[in-house]
Structures are given as structure tokens and as C-alpha cells.
């Protein structure tokens, strides 16, 4: 319940964040647009004013009393008619006012002439008139019948600003509507996108140790949530595998522990049912001790495995030659091969070395060679080969001429307590943990272990380890 609330909360938070970011961006956008619009209007106005000065220049004439006036048809010009708000001022370079139009209402437009005013350019500038109006002024230097005249033409900024403000307020009024629509759309889209998450959460709540086989629904393989679901399902798969393995291990272990206990108990109880001779009692006790020894070995192996599982084992690393280790192992178990008239052939370079805990790795090789001897027939050959693989690994392979291992059992034989049909009889001895201990011993050194069919029909076990560089 709490989880689904959280997912709703996330939706709301996402929408709010989006709404905020969108509003800020929109305001920024409106501001920039208004400013650009304003600049453009100003530029247009100056451009128009410049064109008009040229028109005005053509209409200027000198009156007989030496003043300057404009021909009347200027005001009849159709475009000009629309711009009767223009302000003119004409003055001579010494500052004498020659002409002022009525729009100026007697105020002066920009005061005395500036040095070089209107000579090089149109001198675009903004001027505040004495009556408070703000106007945009262009100046032009003109020779009328050889007489120098400075022509100033200005227009009021107010209508232009009003137009800009209208533009701005329209945009601003539309903004909340835009934001609301966008937020609504985003809320819908996020809800849609997050609904698989709610489904996943609901499903995940149902998954318990007893229902580890449940998986999260994957709506779309390609999107992020689908990816997350697949990753999570992978995790569940691994959990389920280890859980099953643990269950199997526990049931196997209890089987393996109970069997010798059952023997112990039966042997003891049966022998106490009737009186027996001393010799018979000795026999019974010896038989019980054999079972105890088997139990002890099993418990020792189980302890070693559980210590390995919990990572309590510290590795004492050293560098050594693989061949050296093999010689050592063969010097111990070789006698078993001799007893079965088997030949152990060792091939490979002494040079190939690894860095590992010698004692632990020795255990792995010992178990493999011991198995090879155990399952190979008499008078056969066991080949132990050390070589360097193309991908720079040290590989030890142990090839026997035994019955081989069926393909479907090739990975399972490394499971704890797994026994092949041939190995199932206890006559062969062992705890059923040898190969799983070997597997652990190799993997703890970042190596790999496996088995493949040998050419001659037996099995070829291999151990691959990083070379000692």
C-alpha cells in the first residue's frame, strides 16, 4: 500500500517538477520574444524615419525672408498622412531654429546642434522632451541652395511601447493555459509510463521464499522499466537457484548424515539384543567406529564447504609450477594407480606456473586424480597434461579411460553430494563432496573447472587458472 502511494507520489513530483521547469522556460521565452520584438520595432521605426528625412529634404524650400518651410504636398503624401505625429526641427549649424512643426508644441528637439551632427550618419538617438515625451530622433545634414541645414525628425516612442506591451500581455495571458495543458499531458503520460511500475510493485509484494518462481511482468523489453524488470528477474532467478541448491544440499546432507547414524544405531541395538562373545563385541565396536570415521570425514568436509561459502577461508598465496604440484599429488595417490596396474603419464612444461593457495589447489587436483584412478579400469592409462591455452591460461587436464560421464550429468557432477550411477555405490567410498570441493578450490582462484568427453571414451577433466605473470 505504502509502495503504491510512493509510486503515485513520484508521478506527482515528476509532474510538478516538469510544470515548474516549463513555466520558467516559458517566461524566459516570453521575455526574450518581447525584447526582440521591441528591438525590431525600434529598428523599423528608425529605418522609416531615415527614409522620411530624405522625403522631407526634397520638399524643403527657402522662403524669401530666409526662413525654411516645407511644401504643402508633403502632408498630402498618402503614407505620410498616417504619420502626422512626426516631429520636425530644422536648424542651422550655429543653433538658429529655422523650422519647427506643430507636433513639437513649441518645445525644442534635442537642443543645440552637436559637433558633426548628421554629417556622417543619421545619428539615431533617444531624447526626452521638456513636456516629458520620449522620442526617437534621427538627424541629417542637408545643403539647401548651398546653405547648411541640420534636419531633425523624431517620433514618439509611446505608441511603439504600447504595441510591445500588447504583444507581451497576450503572451503572458496565454502562458498559464499552455502550462496547464502541458502539465496535464505530462501527468497522463507519466501515469501511463509508471503504471508498469505499480504492477511490478504489486507482483514483487507477492514474492516470498515459497514463491520464488514468480517473476515481475515485463511490459516493454526495450524501455528502462522493462530493463529494470529483467534485471530484477535475473536476480530472482539466481536467488531461486541458490535457494533450490541450498534446499537440495540440506536434504542431501541430512541423508548423508542419517545413513551412518542409522547404521551406528542398528549395529548397536542389534548387538545388545542378545549376549555375544567378546570377539563378536569387538567386531561390533570396530564396525561402529568405521561409521564414526565416515561421519567425521563428512562433517569435516561440510565444515570446509560452509567455511568456503561464508568466505571465512583465507588464502595463503604463493607461486609454484603446476607440474610440481602434480608430481606431489601423484606421489601421494600414485600408489592407488599402481595397485590397479594403471600408468599415470604426465606431460607438459615445468615452466607453467600459477599463483594460488597451494594446499587448497592441491586438494582439487588430488580429488580429480583420485577420481580418475577410481573410475578407470585396471591396466589403463591416465594422462595428466599441463599446457598454456591460447587465451593465456594455465590448463591442467586429467584424462581417464573410465566409463565417461553422460552429457546431461557433466555440470551436475560438481554439485554437492551428486553421484553418477557408477559412483552411487558407497563401495567406492568418498563423501560425494570431492568434486564440489574441487570446484570451489578452483573458483576461489578465479579459475574454471569442467569435464568433456575424452577421445578414447573416458572423461577429460580440466582446470584452468590465470597464469602467474
Amino acid at each position, binding site marked *: 500500500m505504502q509502495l503504491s502511494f510512493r509510486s503515485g507520489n513520484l508521478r506527482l513530483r515528476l509532474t510538478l517538477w516538469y510544470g515548474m521547469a516549463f513555466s520558467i522556460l516559458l517566461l524566459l521565452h516570453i521575455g526574450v520574444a518581447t525584447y526582440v520584438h521591441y528591438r525590431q520595432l525600434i529598428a523599423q521605426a528608425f529605418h522609416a524615419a531615415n527614409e522620411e528625412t530624405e522625403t522631407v529634404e526634397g520638399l524643403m524650400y527657402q522662403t524669401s525672408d530666409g526662413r525654411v518651410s516645407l511644401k504643402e504636398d508633403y502632408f498630402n503624401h498618402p503614407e505620410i498622412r498616417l504619420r502626422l505625429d512626426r516631429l520636425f526641427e530644422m536648424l542651422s549649424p550655429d543653433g538658429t531654429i529655422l523650422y519647427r512643426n506643430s507636433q513639437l508644441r513649441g518645445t525644442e528637439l534635442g537642443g543645440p546642434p552637436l559637433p558633426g551632427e548628421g554629417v556622417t550618419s543619421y545619428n539615431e538617438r533617444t531624447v526626452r522632451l521638456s513636456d516629458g515625451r520620449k522620442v526617437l530622433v534621427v538627424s541629417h545634414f542637408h545643403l539647401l541652395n548651398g546653405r547648411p541645414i541640420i534636419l531633425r525628425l523624431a517620433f514618439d516612442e509611446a505608441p511603439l511601447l504600447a504595441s510591445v506591451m500588447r504583444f507581451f500581455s497576450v503572451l503572458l495571458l496565454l502562458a498559464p493555459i499552455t502550462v496547464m495543458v502541458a502539465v496535464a499531458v505530462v501527468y497522463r503520460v507519466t501515469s501511463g509510463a509508471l503504471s508498469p511500475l505499480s504492477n511490478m510493485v504489486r507482483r514483487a509484494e507477492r514474492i516470498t521464499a515459497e514463491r520464488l518462481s514468480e517473476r515481475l511482468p515485463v511490459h516493454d523489453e526495450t524501455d528502462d522499466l522493462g530493463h529494470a524488470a529483467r534485471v530484477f528477474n535475473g536476480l530472482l532467478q539466481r536467488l531461486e537457484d541458490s535457494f533450490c541448491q541450498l534446499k537440495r544440499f540440506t536434504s542431501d546432507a541430512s541423508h548423508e548424515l542419517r545413513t551412518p547414524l542409522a547404521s551406528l544405531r542398528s549395529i548397536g541395538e542389534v548387538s545388545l539384543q542378545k549376549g555375544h562373545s567378546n570377539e563378536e563385541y569387538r567386531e561390533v565396536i*570396530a564396525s561402529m567406529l568405521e561409521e*564414526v*570415521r565416515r561421519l567425521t570425514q563428512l562433517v569435516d568436509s561440510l565444515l570446509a564447504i560452509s567455511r568456503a561459502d561464508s568466505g571465512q577461508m*583465507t588464502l595463503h598465496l604463493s607461486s609454484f609450477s603446476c607440474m610440481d604440484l602434480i608430481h606431489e599429488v601423484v606421489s*601421494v595417490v600414485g600408489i*592407488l594407480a599402481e595397485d590397479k596396474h594403471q600408468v599415470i603419464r604426465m606431460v607438459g612444461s615445468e615452466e607453467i606456473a600459477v599463483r594460488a593457495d597451494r594446499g587448497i589447489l592441491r*586438494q582439487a587436483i588430488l580429488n580429480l586424480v*583420485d577420481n580418475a584412478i577410481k573410475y578407470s579400469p585396471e591396466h589403463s592409462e591416465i594422462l595428466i597434461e599441463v599446457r598454456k591455452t591460447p587465451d593465456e591460461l594455465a590448463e591442467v587436464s586429467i584424462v581417464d579411460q573410465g566409463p565417461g560421464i553422460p552429457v546431461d550429468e557433466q555440470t551436475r557432477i560438481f554439485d554437492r553430494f551428486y553421484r553418477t550411477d557408477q559412483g552411487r555405490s558407497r563401495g567406492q567410498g568418498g563423501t560425494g563432496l570431492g568434486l564440489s570441493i574441487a570446484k570451489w578450490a578452483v573458483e576461489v582462484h578465479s579459475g574454471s573447472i569442467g569435464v568433456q568427453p575424452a577421445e578414447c571414451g573416458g572423461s577429460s577433466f580440466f582446470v584452468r587458472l590465470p597464469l602467474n605473470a
Partner: protein
Amino acid sequence: MQILIVEDESKLAYALQQGLQEEGYAATVALSGEDALRWFERTTPDLVLLDVMLSKRNGLSVLREFRRDGFQTPVLLLTALDSVEDRVLGLDAGADDYLVKPFAFPELLARVRALLRRTATTPQATLDLADLHMNLAGRTAARDGVALELTSREFDLLEYLMLNRGRVVSREMLTRDVWKETMRYTSLDNVIDVQVARLRRKIDDPFDVKLLHTVRGIGFVLREE
């Protein structure tokens, strides 16, 4: 020789007591650490067998107190904990040796003997049992004057059995002391059985008097019967 057994598992304690008494030692049982410390006040044993996981008071704390009081008596720890760290902890507390449960009784006897004679051990140059003679320096062995052709491992095995002649040695002892295998879970039982059978073929088969005997359920013994 007086041995004090400090062990709260009474079945084990009395079994050890009986076993040690049968070997000619005077053995006493203390079922708790407090009992043991009270016992020390009256008399000092020649050797202490001390269980680490005592129910009330930890064996190691008993050992530390014992050592703090200045007792030099050798102490053999008996424990179900066999990690390297536990071993170091025990030896640091002042133990002289360490034996992991479940142990073979012959092994306990061997450790007890080793601790008791720690002061005076003279390496022997030759070993003899009946007409079997071993020259340890020259690594030769002969029976009834006939030289025995032994492999190196067979010689080591025979030497170990000879050093313990008359006493049963367990497979665990052979695994550790002759094959020098340190991993407790490594089982070399098959190897040992085959090796013993071979040794027997060489030292016993050609002769009427058999010396190397298998004690079923425990191990092997070299003795004249």
C-alpha cells in the same frame, strides 16, 4: 604421572579417564572450570587436558588464570573449533598443543606422551622390534638380517610405526605425520590402506612372525604377538 581432564561432557571425560588409566596414568576428572581451578590449589598435575567450550566458564579463561598464577604444567586443548584463528587464540592463551574433536584416542595418547616427555627426548639412531631392525641415519631396514627394499614413503611409514611400536596409530595420525597432509578434510584412507598392505608384503609376508597388524576401526599397530 597425574593427568587432569577438564571436560564438561561427562561421557567423554570418563571415557578419557578410563583410557588413560588403562595406559598407566593417574587421571582425574574436573567437570567445570571452577572445579579445575580448585583442584589446582591442592595439587599440580603433570598434564592438563582442557576443553575449550566449557558450559559455564570458557576453557581459555581458565587457562589464562592458570598461567597467570604461574603454573608451568603443559596443557593440551580439546576443542571442536578448528579454524586457524581458534588455534592461534588457544596457543596465545598459553596452551602447549591443540587437538580437534572428534579425535582418535591413539592420537590423544601420542600427544600426551609427546607433552610429558617434552623435556627429555633423545633422537634415536636405530629402532628394533623383534628381528626387525631400522637404521634411521642410513635409512636402511632389515628383518632377520635380510635387507628390506623400501621406498621412501614405506620407510617413513615403518619408522613412524616403529617409533610408536606396541601402540595403535590411527589413519588420521598417519595422514598428518607421514603424508604431511594439513587439511583435515583430506581423506587418504585408500592410499594408507594400500601403502600398509605393501609394507606388510615386504616386512611380514616372507616371515612366520607377523609384526604389522590392523586394528579394525582404529588403525594399525606394529607389535610382536
